[in-house]
């Protein structure tokens, strides 16, 4: 054994130890999420929310639109779109999702599920959403892989066999 410590904990250590005791647990949750041991205090629509953010971002980039141009086409606030793409804040308003569905021609029911405004009815869609969100990276230009992922995901969302709500 090396570096035997002969003195007690430092003031910083003692302070941290007291905070730790008052927290109940200080564990990070990375492993718990990966293993499905932590569902959190939030509704299970949060992960699909990531797919919604990524879907809009990739769609917009494929169209070559700025956020402002996307907002104009969809007739929604630029700030709302920005918040969605950054995955921040509460779920968007139903009107915003409806407008986005119109411009992207993706079934509104599926977009409601992805955005966290409706409970997903299909496990397949949820799995596809997680896969999609995990595969795509935020890069300036759409890679071929991202383009493939986007097209596959839209095909799944538009499949009438998966209980899709048509516009």
């Amino acid at each position, binding site marked *: *054994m*090396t*570096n*035997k*410590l002969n*003195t*007690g*904990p*430092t*003031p*910083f*250590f*003692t*302070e*941290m*130890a*007291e*905070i*730790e*005791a008052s*927290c*109940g*647990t*200080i*564990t*990070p*949750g*990375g*492993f*718990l*999420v*990966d*293993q499905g*041991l*932590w*569902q*959190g*205090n*939030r509704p299970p629509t*949060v*992960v699909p*929310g*990531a797919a919604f*953010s990524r879907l809009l971002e990739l769609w917009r980039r494929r169209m070559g639109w700025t956020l402002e141009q996307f907002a104009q086409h969809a007739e929604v606030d630029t700030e709302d779109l920005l918040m969605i793409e950054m*995955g*921040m804040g509460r779920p968007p308003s139903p009107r915003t999702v409806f407008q986005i569905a119109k411009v992207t021609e993706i079934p509104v029911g599926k977009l409601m599920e992805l955005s966290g405004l409706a409970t997903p009815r299909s496990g397949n869609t949820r799995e596809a959403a*997680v896969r999609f*969100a*995990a595969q795509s990276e935020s890069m300036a230009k759409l890679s071929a892989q991202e383009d493939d992922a986007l097209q596959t995901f839209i095909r799944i969302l538009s499949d009438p066999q998966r209980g899709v709500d048509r516009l």
Partner: protein
Amino acid sequence: MSRPLRVIQLQRRDAPLVSCELLAELTPLELLSVDEAWHGDRLAMMRQLMQREIPRSQWPQSLHWDWSRKVLAAPQLIHSVYAIRSESKWLGAMLIRADPRYRVRLGPEAGKEIVYVDFVESAPWNWPVPALDQDVSITGVGTALMLAAVEKSMEEEFGGRLGLHALPQSERFYEAFGMTRVAADAWKQGLVYFEMTQTQAQEAWRKGGWT
């Protein structure tokens, strides 16, 4: 065998300091020993909670986190397991990894490697469980393990840089530890990602680390 790092002293609530061994890279057999010890503690706690008819909402969240078996069941261990032991009793354990998927997101160090902290737990008999009038008896187990993670990051020449996703109830601990709140990650169930820069790590080590 695990790698003994050092002897540390932790504070016992009702007694003098207690000497503990800080161990790195536990073997699967040693992890099994942790699992055996704590599984029995969990069952005993569950029995007490049931006998006292404590509502499930007041049970410790971590009671059903069967993490050690998940690790043992993995085809290959991707984590380094650290632990603290005193007089043959396991006090705490930590899962960390140097995973190229996790890298610094903020500032001039963006893109550099980090040690990612996956999980930290102390022994069930050392959890605060108000419903059973049980309090923490030895403090600082998680703090010591976090400092060990900083040291590991220094050993790996990552400059002490760390990253982790905090559970909501532990966020204030990581802020006090000196880490920066980066963002809530939707792909981690909305958990907030925290990062420790090289400067922050050096500061935490200076104030709380061992010589």
